[in-house]
């Protein structure tokens, strides 16, 4: 039984839940009716209408009313069967069933139809009168209470007692069930309790993109990204005989796909399930789980979990076979353990938590806390939230306290978002907590939910029915506050611009947190604006606001602030607006503005303000004026004294005349001087202010600089023939050079069956080195095993694999036999690369030699260990395909030397390529032919350029080039070239032949035109000015060395590797095309795949 709320009062005889609000009515024996909020635990109201005991109360379902007092139930059935008086009867919420309790200490279940009801079963167990009994509204159970001071729970189908809860002194009188929620209330002699029978929090564990949780009797998982919910495996039906024995916590190890489920069964126990990789089991068969007893169990590493053994206060570390690997005593009396990073545990005691390192056996962190219920780590494991019933403590990974929040309503769950904000739920709200402890409400909740994960604005949670839900929240407020906190003012600014954030609360927050300048942006009200502007020292805005408001008080405040800042212009303005002449005069005095000061004097005169006038005269040091004022004011003696003192004798005499005989006598022997205020160092103007970088809030966001446009780089230095129009080169390049080499099915037969046959041969271990401490016992060191590269050599007849193994002589012999290669010099760097790339280097024991490990190819997850596979080679076919494309590109761009280099390197690498399938073997062989044609063609083209002084040879080579098997765009370019050359040399017939071939090859429009005009010109003038060794009507191949045509029927010899043709005289020479093999030698053919050997 989980008690949620308890009251102390007179005997409670009637109870009623409000269907929507967290209210409960309790009617007391004393005649009082109380209305409680059971969530907040407060008494909302009391009603003293009744004089005697109130037997029953009931809320109206929809209206704000309740009834109390006498019961007016309409009796429909007479239940006969109880021996003594029936105290209570109630209906089943959906089925035609009635349950009744009576003074015969029995509970009877009745079935009814329209006309009658009959007894079905009797539940015995109560020791005294049964006061109240009812069907649970959401579960298949019956709850009853009695004057025997107990509440009993019964299985409604099996009709057996499930559980009994006893109270020490109080007899129970009334029971009541919440119509919608999982809540019950019971009234007793001295108050009432609100309680629930079972926990409703699902056990769950979040792992990356998914949450694993238990619902009913299944382990399920929910993927956040796809919002897909999947049932994984059935788990053991935990004690249906007893309540509240369902799974409490769940721990998941993603790498091993293992789940630990803990429950209260047997006083705390766990079950370990391994989720089968392939199938989320369809059947209902429960996997035989590994079990154990323990307070709590969590994974502490990928394949280790810790189990708390409360009796001895130690932690057992176990492996996935449920075997104990290690035991470790805990430094504090622990009642639960939680994960705290690999190998670490967060141990919870009554009043504190610690982080304990299992390996070092050391306490890494320690924190005094209230009773912690749940622990939530941030994604980066840097921060932890410790949830207790009414508070949240945020600490870092060493349990250094950061902040504590207190909640009046119970805290339920929480999760960290990616920005380090902790989002949590109470019974009624979703709230946030910033790293500095500021918190606030995000949203109200109708029903409690348990947050599992936060993704941006989405809060994912499980509800009490075990359903995954996603709640979209407005994160603006806390993100705004977070940005302020982190001083990310650019974010702040953009949020101010783009979202609706204004509101008194936000302004108050900003002011309180010392950001009045930010608050300024929200405020429309001029008075608030004015105050904020003053607070942030923003005079401009303050002036603008003051103008709008135009009240004396505000001008005054503005003046004070402006004075503080030394902005005399504004001060003057403010004083002027308030007509504060005294201050204004004084301002002019201290700023040395004598002109204005004298103006002030005049104003005073006009206004007849004698005192003001006099002050100004004093400030100005204007003696005559002073005398005049005194005189006008009738202060003749003073005027006289003044005049006399300052030596204005004429005036003094006039005045003396007016005074008649009453001329004051001046003290003698004193020297006199005119007191004039010192001239200010700085006259007028504002105080100089330091130049300050404009804050982001003043200037606003800079416009993001325009992205520089990427310059397009084109193939500028194309080098195609002199007369050729090369405008279209680029178009061609992007056009139809598409080499269609299918790449599929390359892993067709990756099984390497041939290698599996024999295992690594190891000498039988005669002497097993026993780990004995006696060194004297005879130890014979084993003979060294065979290095992997030797195994490669033994099993392979592929040259590349021999080269990788470092056996260059056998590799060369193989190449010589297979391809007739005799010139190995071009292959030197390739051999060395193969060998150098054959092993990795593993640093092992400190200061000991490293371990070299042979890299094998065709690795797969399911490959068996200890079965050696052939070496992974540094060259592969796909690299050659890339190179081929690069070669084509260089050719198109006219960079022939570069292109030739690329094609040669392909030709040199192919003998050291290994592919898997026969199909790929064919592709490799095809590649040899393609590349050979280009090599020959490009060599001829480069040769042609050396014959500047031999136009005939030039024409011939250009012509032969068009007979190499090139890609269509290249062929077109070659034809254009040959056509232009022949046309210019006056060989019009040959030129027109090229033109025709060009037209057949889909040329670009302008090229086609050119070709047609060449044909027209040739038709007018059918002649060749020079005789070429070129008969295009007669099929021929070009000799790879002498570049002469070998017409059909003439004798030739071949290169055994690249299959280039040669005139007979070349026999026995190194092939001039591939530069590797001996022309005309015997060879067995290219061997580049184990598939060819099988």
């Amino acid at each position, binding site marked *: 039984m989980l008690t949620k709320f308890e009251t102390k009062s007179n005997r409670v005889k009637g109870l009623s839940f409000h269907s929507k609000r967290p209210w409960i009515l309790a009617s007391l024996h004393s005649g009082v009716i109380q209305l409680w909020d059971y969530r907040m635990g407060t008494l909302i109201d009391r009603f003293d209408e009744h004089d005697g005991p109130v037997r029953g109360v009931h809320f109206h379902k929809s209206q704000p009313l309740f009834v109390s007092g006498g019961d007016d139930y309409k009796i429909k059935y007479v239940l006969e069967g109880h021996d003594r008086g029936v105290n209570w009867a109630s209906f089943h919420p959906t089925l035609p069933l009635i349950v009744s309790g009576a003074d015969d200490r029995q509970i009877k279940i009745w079935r009814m139809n329209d006309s009658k009801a009959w007894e079905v079963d009797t539940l015995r167990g109560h020791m005294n009168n049964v006061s109240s009994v009812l069907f649970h509204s959401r579960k298949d159970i019956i709850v009853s209470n009695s004057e025997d001071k107990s509440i009993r729970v019964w299985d409604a189908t099996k009709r057996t007692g499930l559980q009994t809860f006893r109270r020490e002194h109080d007899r129970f009188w009334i029971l009541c069930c919440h119509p919608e929620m999982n809540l019950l209330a019971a009234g007793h002699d001295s108050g009432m309790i609100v309680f629930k029978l079972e926990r409703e929090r699902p056990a769950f564990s979040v792992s990356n993109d998914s949450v694993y949780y238990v619902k009913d009797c299944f382990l399920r998982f929910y993927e956040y990204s796809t919002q897909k919910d999947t049932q994984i495996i059935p788990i053991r039906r935990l004690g249906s005989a007893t309540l509240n024995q369902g799974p409490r916590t769940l721990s998941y190890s993603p790498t091993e796909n293992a789940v630990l489920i803990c429950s209260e069964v047997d006083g705390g126990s766990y079950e370990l399930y391994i989720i089968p990789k392939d199938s989320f089991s369809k059947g209902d068969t429960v996997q035989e789980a590994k079990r154990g007893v323990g307070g709590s169990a969590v994974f502490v*590493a990928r394949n280790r979990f810790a189990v708390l053994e409360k009796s001895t206060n130690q932690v057992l570390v176990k492996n996935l076979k449920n075997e104990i690997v290690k035991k470790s005593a805990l430094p504090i009396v622990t009642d639960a353990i939680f994960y705290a990073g690999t190998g670490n545990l967060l141990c919870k005691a009554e009043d504190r938590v610690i982080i304990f390192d299992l390996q*070092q056996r050391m306490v890494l962190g320690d924190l005094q806390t209230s009773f912690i219920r749940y622990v939530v780590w941030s994604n980066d494991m840097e921060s932890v939230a410790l949830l207790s019933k009414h508070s949240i403590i945020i600490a870092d990974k060493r349990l250094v306290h950061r902040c504590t929040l207190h909640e009046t309503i119970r805290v339920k769950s929480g999760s960290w978002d990616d920005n380090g904000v902790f989002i949590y739920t109470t019974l009624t709200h979703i709230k946030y907590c910033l790293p500095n402890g500021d918190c606030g409400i995000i949203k109200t909740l109708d029903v409690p939910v348990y947050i599992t994960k936060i993704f941006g604005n989405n809060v994912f949670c499980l509800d009490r029915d075990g359903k995954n839900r996603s709640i979209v929240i407005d994160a603006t407020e806390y993100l705004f506050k977070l940005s302020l906190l982190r001083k990310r003012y650019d974010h702040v600014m953009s949020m101010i611009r783009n979202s609706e954030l204004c509101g008194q609360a936000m302004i108050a927050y900003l002011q309180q947190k010392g950001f009045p300048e930010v608050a300024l942006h929200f405020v429309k009200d001029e008075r608030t604006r004015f105050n904020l502007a003053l607070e942030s020292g923003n005079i401009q805005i303050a002036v603008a606001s003051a103008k709008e408001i135009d009240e004396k008080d505000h001008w005054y405040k503005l003046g004070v602030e402006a004075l503080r800042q030394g902005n005399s212009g504004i001060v003057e303005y403010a004083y002027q607006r308030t007509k504060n002449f005294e201050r204004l005069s004084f301002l002019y005095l201290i700023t040395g503005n004598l002109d204005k000061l004298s103006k002030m004097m005049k104003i005073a005169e006009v206004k007849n303000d004698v005192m003001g006038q006099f002050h100004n005269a004093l400030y100005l040091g204007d003696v005559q004026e002073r005398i005049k004022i005194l005189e006008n004011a009738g202060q003749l003696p003073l005027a006289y004294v003044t005049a006399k003192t300052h030596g204005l004798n004429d005036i003094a005499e006039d005045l003396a005349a007016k005074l008649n005989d009453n001329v004051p006598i001046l003290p003698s022997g004193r020297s006199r001087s005119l007191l004039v205020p010192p001239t200010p160092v700085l006259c007028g103007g504002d105080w100089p202010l330091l130049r300050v970088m404009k804050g982001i809030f003043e200037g606003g966001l800079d416009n993001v600089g325009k992205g520089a446009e990427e310059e397009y780089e084109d193939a500028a230095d194309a080098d195609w023939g002199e007369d050729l129009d090369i405008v279209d080169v680029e178009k061609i390049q992007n056009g139809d050079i598409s080499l269609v080499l299918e790449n599929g099915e390359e892993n067709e037969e990756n099984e390497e069956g041939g290698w599996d046959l024999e295992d690594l041969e190891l000498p039988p271990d005669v002497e097993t080195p026993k780990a004995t401490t006696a060194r004297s016992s005879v130890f014979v060191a084993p003979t060294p095993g065979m290095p992997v590269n030797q195994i490669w050599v033994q099993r392979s007849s592929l040259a590349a694999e021999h080269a990788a193994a470092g056996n260059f002589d056998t590799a060369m012999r193989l190449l010589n036999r297979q391809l007739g290669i005799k*010139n190995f010099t071009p292959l030197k760097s390739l051999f060395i690369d193969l060998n150098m790339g054959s092993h990795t280097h593993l640093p092992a024991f400190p200061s000991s*030699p490293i371990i070299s490990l042979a890299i094998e190819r065709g690795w797969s997850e399911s490959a068996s260990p200890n*079965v050696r596979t052939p070496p992974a080679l540094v060259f592969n076919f796909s690299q050659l395909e890339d190179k081929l494309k690069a070669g084509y590109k260089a050719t198109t761009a006219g960079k022939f030397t570069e292109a030739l280099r690329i094609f040669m390197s392909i030709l040199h690498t192919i003998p050291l390529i290994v592919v898997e399938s026969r199909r790929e073997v064919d592709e490799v062989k095809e590649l040899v032919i393609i590349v050979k044609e280009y090599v020959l063609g490009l060599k001829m083209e480069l040769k042609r350029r050396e014959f500047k002084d031999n136009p005939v040879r030039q024409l011939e080579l250009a012509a032969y080039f068009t007979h190499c098997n090139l890609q269509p765009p290249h062929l077109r370019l070659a034809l254009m070239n040959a056509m232009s050359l022949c046309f210019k040399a006056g060989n019009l017939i040959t030129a027109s032949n090229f033109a025709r071939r060009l037209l057949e090859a889909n040329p670009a429009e302008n090229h086609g035109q050119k070709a047609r005009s060449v044909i027209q010109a040739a038709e007018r003038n059918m002649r060749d000015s020079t005789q070429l060794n070129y008969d295009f009507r007669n099929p021929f191949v070009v000799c790879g060395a002498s570049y002469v045509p070998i017409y059909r029927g003439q004798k030739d010899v071949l290169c055994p590797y690249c299959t280039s043709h040669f005139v007979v005289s070349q026999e026995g020479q190194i092939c001039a095309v591939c530069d590797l093999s001996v022309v005309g030698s015997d060879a067995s053919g290219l061997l580049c795949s184990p598939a060819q050997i099988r």
Partner: protein
Amino acid sequence: MATAPDVLFNLRNNFYLGAYQAAINNNDVPNLSEEDAIERDCLVYRSYIALGSYQLVINEVDSSAATPLQAVKLLALYLFSPDSKENTISSIREWLGDAAIGNNPILRLIAGTIFMHEQDYNEALKYTNAGGTMELYALNVHIFLKMNRSDYAEKQLRVMQQIDEDHTLTQLATAWLNLAVGGSKIQEAYLIFQDFSEKYQMTSLILNGKAVCCMHMGNFDEAESFLLEALNKDAKDQETLANLVVCSLHLGKPSARFLSQLKLSDPEHVLVKRGLTAEENFDRAMQTVG
């Protein structure tokens, strides 16, 4: 069941995982027993050796120091002056023959290490095979792997697992063996290095371990990123450079610069030697075949 905190745990762990500077910097552990203090000093001096500061160790350890420290000094001498290797070896033999100190585990460990460098595995095993400490067992695993005898290495590893399966050296040795036997075990090796990288400071040893696993699984792109990360930590680390050469070769990227860096930082490195031997082999083979 041990209850006392393992005060030298961090120091040892740093040393095994290649965080040598961290081991040196955090050696100030209070309240050490005499025995622990000697172990601490050994670990610190061995860290200096691993960092190549041989001279420092040779100068600081005087003749009055305890046997284990003397042994560590011998290792420094051996690695410092290749010319006087013979002397060092003969003195270590002499000490091993001394009944009073010959059984000291550190002395035996150093002997095993030196004979491994000499590639005399039989001689190394003569002193280490009896084991006795986790380090000795781990070294045995290492030696057997060098001998291509993974079957023996596995037996040795099982002994370690029985003592403490979660010990850093047990885990490391498991990874070595897994890599050596290959196949599906490589993944397990990767997970071990992954665990280390999550739990402890990232070192080039761990990064190289991960990279090597990736390369053996055919994942050279990922391996490259680990190696570049390791290069950021220590631009002169020989294993990082050597593995980068290998990785670049497989990716078809230029490797020459890494190789010349490696030649500068360790002209005796296995890979440098492999390259030189390969060149010689090639020329010789050209003579015979060509």
